[in-house]
């Protein structure tokens, strides 16, 4: 009984860690620009597929280049890192096309929501043209875990090693990012731009560079999440990231828009809540995040750890 519960909690925490990654990505961009980058879900998909290709996976029969694949194949850790960086670079492209022109014109921030949604749709469908709509399983599976056993026994509970790795890697990424934001010069500069871009600019901080940095990091976090989910479950089709992107939104609101600790706590809570849905109601699990989102928006729109903002005229 206790073992089963422990197993449930660990699984919940593992998917919660991935939700936290996605939500943190949203948070970085939101705190700097005050807008939500709806392309985040697409970048999640791209991270998953890049990891697959970098590990030596081949394109399926419905893709643009059937049977094509990179020669060789990188070990999981390196592939994951490069895939995250690749998603970060594509995120920079999204910033250039969907956000920068509107910002230059001083357009209403809500328009960026629409353009980034468009960027996401284009990216996911280009991915679909390239890779086909079919699902992919990772080429190496258990080998990728470099000699680790498939299943670990923790306190009597059997849990898949990849789930533990998932939790550890996302925890490490989240921790590193928080420390960087809190302690380093670059992190402080980013927070200064988030607080007040004009003042930061006057103090000699390159605001434009900080905006790009925020987009790169946020894309990399999404890509990391996509790679991790891809290895631990599979790649069920180019759209799989959209679902995680939408759930990340729910986590973002749950934690409080713009709050880093909120995104982390929200992610874990959401993962645990989903894990506790009984299996005979598993079809409803996907609605849980949005039901929670609704309740939070109604009872406490500033989220669990968000700042309450006062509307000014």
């Amino acid at each position, binding site marked *: 009984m206790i073992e089963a519960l422990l197993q449930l909690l660990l699984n919940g925490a593992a998917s919660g860690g991935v939700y936290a990654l996605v939500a943190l990505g949203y948070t970085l961009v939101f705190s700097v620009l005050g*807008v*939500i980058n709806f392309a985040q879900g697409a970048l999640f998909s791209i991270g998953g597929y890049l990891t697959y290709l970098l590990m030596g996976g081949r394109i399926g029969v419905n893709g643009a280049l059937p049977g094509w694949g990179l020669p060789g194949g990188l070990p999981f850790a390196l592939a994951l890192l490069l895939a995250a960086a690749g998603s970060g670079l594509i995120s920079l492209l999204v910033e250039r*096309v*969907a956000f920068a*022109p*509107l910002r230059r*014109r001083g*357009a209403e*921030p*809500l*328009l960026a*929501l*629409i*353009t980034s*949604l*468009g*960027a*996401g*749709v*284009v*990216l*996911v*469908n*280009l991915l679909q*043209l390239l890779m086909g709509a079919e699902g992919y399983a990772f080429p190496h599976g258990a080998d990728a875990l470099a000699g680790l056993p498939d299943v670990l026994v923790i306190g009597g509970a059997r849990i898949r090693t990849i789930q533990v790795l998932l939790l550890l890697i996302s925890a490490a990424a989240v921790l590193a990012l928080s420390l960087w934001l809190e302690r380093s010069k670059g992190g402080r500069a980013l927070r200064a731009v988030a607080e007040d871009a004009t003042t930061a600019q006057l103090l000699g901080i390159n605001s434009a560079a900080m905006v790009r940095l925020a987009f790169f990091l946020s894309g990399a976090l999404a890509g990391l999440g996509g790679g991790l989910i891809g290895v631990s479950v599979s790649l069920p089709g180019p759209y799989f990231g*959209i679902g995680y992107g*939408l759930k990340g*939104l*729910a986590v973002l*609101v749950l934690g409080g*828009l713009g709050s880093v600790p909120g995104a982390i706590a929200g992610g874990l809570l959401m993962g645990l809540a989903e894990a506790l849905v009984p299996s005979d109601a598993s*079809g*409803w699990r*996907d*609605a849980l995040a*949005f*039901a929670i*989102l*609704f309740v939070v*928006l*109604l009872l406490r*729109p500033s989220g669990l750890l968000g700042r309450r903002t006062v*509307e000014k*005229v």
Partner: protein
Amino acid sequence: MIDNGLLVQMLLGALLGLSVYLPLAAGQLSLATPAFYAVGGTLAALLSTRWSGLGATADGGFPVPSLLLELVLGGLLAGLLALLVGRLVLRLQGIYLAIATIALVEIVRVAILNLPFTGGAVGIFAIPQPFHDASGYLLPALALLALAGWICQRLEGMPLGRAMAAIRGDELAARCLGIDTTRVKLTAFVLSAVLAGSTGALAAHFLNTWNARQGSFDASITTLAFVVLGGSRTWLGPVMGGLLLTALPELLRPVGNVRLVLFGLVILLGPVLAPQGLITPALLERLGGWNPRGSAEGRQEAQP
């Protein structure tokens, strides 16, 4: 090229475009249209097959008055849902409202997928047909569009429409002028839902099968593209956007399956290249002095 079936689809697209336009005319970006469309369609599919049948015949026929009844009921149910949900979500603004409406679409989708009587992933099929072929649907679709367009046009001269425009301009200022902004926004939201619900009821018969995929996040994007392309300053914009963007992928079919890439590009580049969309008030004025605002006041402004 354009056959009757495609024409009906185009009209349905125009109707959904109008449904996204209505809250937007009051300054509210709601992506909830597919949720209401799904609710109306599901109700019609259930009423004409599993529940009462409403006079469906054994050979798959269906009386036209029953279809009209379903349009009304689908609209009413969707409107009722909008009334309940709108009271809660319309307190939210901007990004929060957009997120809340996406959440509504997802909840409705998962509910239709999992409820015991909606047919699961397969959905409801063999929905009875009131007409012999696709051309029969032209008349009701056109009539619904004419009615919706007439209401939108009338709105612009009415206090409600003016209040909507005021809220769109500056919500706080509108409130200071004594406009009950919550009530106005709620009315626009409910109107949008009724329209989407009725459209769904018609679409369920036209499409012959109905499942949870009809009201997905994809559909939110598609319907949003209608408004972004056509423009949201006059009701003719979303109508044009819906007609064009529904027809275009069919006409481009030889190019391959690029439908969603196309929609994505429209939403991505539209606000940058043509912030007002294709149909702007200025354009309408140039095309023969027809005033989209439809009011005496507007005409005076046009000829100072």
